[in-house]
């Protein structure tokens, strides 16, 4: 297409389609660009290729049946999503979960965050052509995946949290496995920093690329590491603390430039903070119950169903009718790996959710994508995209 630029000069632009099925558009994302040589002049995005009607599906089941669907939102840190959802529902019940459950959830949350950030940084490197850091990051990730296997029986889309507790307590040797994973995480961090920090090619590709100011990021509703990379110290674990996050000794990581390099470095630094939190949490992990004892919220233990009439009734009602969440409308946001994962929940007091609206952190970040890539090179758009860590599962729901 032929256009006149703002100075009145004639330009011949080439429309170039990127995606939806492109090795660097993780998941399925599509954007159409107008190219002037190698430079992107304008870009528009299309999403929805992974839209599977999460919000329609969950209206058809019981409250507990929502949990496995939430795993498929951000599948790089699946358990984090179902903890966020269970927390929202527990807040509606206004119940407090047992201490051991809280500590276990913190451990699992932070291990998921480590996993998620490793995938993001590794994939970003891979997209820029470096395969070595990918292997460095995936070694500790594999150890955490093995913990998931032992804990839940699944590797990727695993659900561990339940409304009012956890699906089961941790296994024997859990603490040792976590400590071993933390040690290799720290080793991998050293290796990654050695690859990243003074790597000329990497710095040339990421420093000053895809810059966004703090005001603009806030206006776009950015949350999580991407917002913190722009220098805003906003973290729900500090601002609206839950699960005693405020009592752990850790810092909110902020960047200065808001560019692609900062977004990746913030993630690496957050892994360090997560390691700190998990180490402290392991010390607090004392024996005790993990579930609320209330058959109206948490299904009674399986053995009770065979020995106790009340237990049988509780299990039956809970499975067939679902928990009865108090009637009302509630919004609850939790700090997940990518930012604030929020659930707007409308309950009519029955065993089925009336409506659940997910606020995926990726959506707001991808909505600003055109502003980040316009004026840059086409190759830089790939660096920007992987630095944002767009997970199509939660973007499209």
């Amino acid at each position, binding site marked *: *297409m*032929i*256009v*006149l*630029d*703002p100075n009145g000069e*004639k*330009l011949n*632009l080439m*429309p170039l*389609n990127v995606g*939806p099925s492109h090795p660097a558009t993780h998941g399925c994302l*599509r954007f*159409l660009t*107008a190219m002037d040589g190698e430079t992107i*002049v*304008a*870009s*528009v995005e*299309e*999403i*929805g290729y992974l*839209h599977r*009607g999460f*919000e*329609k599906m969950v*209206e058809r089941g019981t409250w507990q049946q929502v949990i496995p669907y939430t795993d498929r939102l951000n599948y790089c840190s699946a358990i984090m999503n179902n903890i966020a959802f269970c927390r929202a529902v527990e*807040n509606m019940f*206004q119940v407090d979960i047992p201490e051991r459950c809280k500590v276990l959830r913190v451990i699992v949350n932070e291990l998921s965050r480590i996993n998620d950030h490793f995938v993001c940084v590794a994939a970003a490197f891979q997209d820029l052509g470096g395969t070595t850091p990918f292997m460095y990051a995936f070694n500790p990730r594999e150890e955490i995946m093995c913990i998931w296997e032992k804990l839940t029986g699944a590797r990727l889309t695993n659900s561990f949290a339940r409304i009012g507790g956890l699906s089961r307590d941790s296994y024997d040797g859990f603490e040792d496995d976590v400590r071993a994973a933390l040690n290799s995480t720290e080793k991998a961090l050293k290796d990654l920093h050695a690859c990243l920090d003074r790597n000329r090619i990497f710095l040339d590709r990421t420093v000053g690329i895809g810059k966004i100011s703090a005001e603009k990021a*806030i*206006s*776009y*509703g950015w949350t999580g590491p991407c917002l913190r990379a722009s220098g805003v110290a*906003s973290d729900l674990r*500090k*601002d*609206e603390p839950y699960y005693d996050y405020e009592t752990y000794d850790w810092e909110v990581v902020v960047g200065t430039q808001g560019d692609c390099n900062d977004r990746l470095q913030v993630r690496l630094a957050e892994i360090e903070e997560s390691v700190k939190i998990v180490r402290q949490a392991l010390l607090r992990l004392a024996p005790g119950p993990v579930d609320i004892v209330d058959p109206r919220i948490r299904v009674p233990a399986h053995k009770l169903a065979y020995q106790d009439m009340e237990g049988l009734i509780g299990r039956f009602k809970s499975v067939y009718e679902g928990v009865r969440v*108090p*009637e*009302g*409308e*509630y*919004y609850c*946001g939790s700090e997940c790996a990518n930012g*604030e994962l*929020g659930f707007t929940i*409308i309950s*009519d*007091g029955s065993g089925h959710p*009336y*409506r659940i*609206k997910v*606020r995926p952190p990726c*959506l*707001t970040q991808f*909505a*600003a994508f*055109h502003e980040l890539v*316009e004026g840059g090179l086409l190759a830089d758009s790939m660096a920007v995209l992987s630095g944002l860590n767009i997970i199509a599962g939660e973007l*499209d729901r």
Partner: protein
Amino acid sequence: MNTVEEIFAVLDEKFGAKRETLDKWGTTAVISASYLHTAVQFLKEKSDIKFEMLVDIAGIDYLTYPNHEGPRFAVSYAFKSMSKPGTRIRLKVLVSEEDLKVPTISDLYANANWYEREVYDQFGVVFVGHPDLRRLLNHVEFVGHPLRKDYPAQKRQWLSTNDYLLPELEKRLETLGYKVVQRSKEVETNDNEFLEGSIKE
């Protein structure tokens, strides 16, 4: 003293906001659509606690809600304050089926653009003044609004082709100050065959 309560009192005084009794856990102000834009502007720029971030916009269809009275649809806005972390407020606008119109706030918050497109897509609520009201998650050929309670969940539709996007690209170029002199040869925007889809009976 709860300052969100004070802000609610100001909203009540200025815009006639009513408290949503269904929200027992936070503060939700029900506001009429005509005041929405000024109320949001007030929350963003002038109130004692400024709500700089729009967190979410959710559409709600009350068709099968037990004992529900009043308009069928609602749009619920969640805001949070960055200058005073941990402070949140929600606004809710009730929309009747006959007059499915809500003023846009996409000029105030950049992310409202996509959120409003999503609500339009899923519920069919029209945001007056929105610069680019298209479907967001569902397909360009999709008929109906799937999150309405009367849309059958198992209904299937033939969807055959990608979103056009070229007119949007031209629009984007124009907002950036470019002027399209000659359109791309390979695509004509009124190409009916494209919009009908490639799968023929």
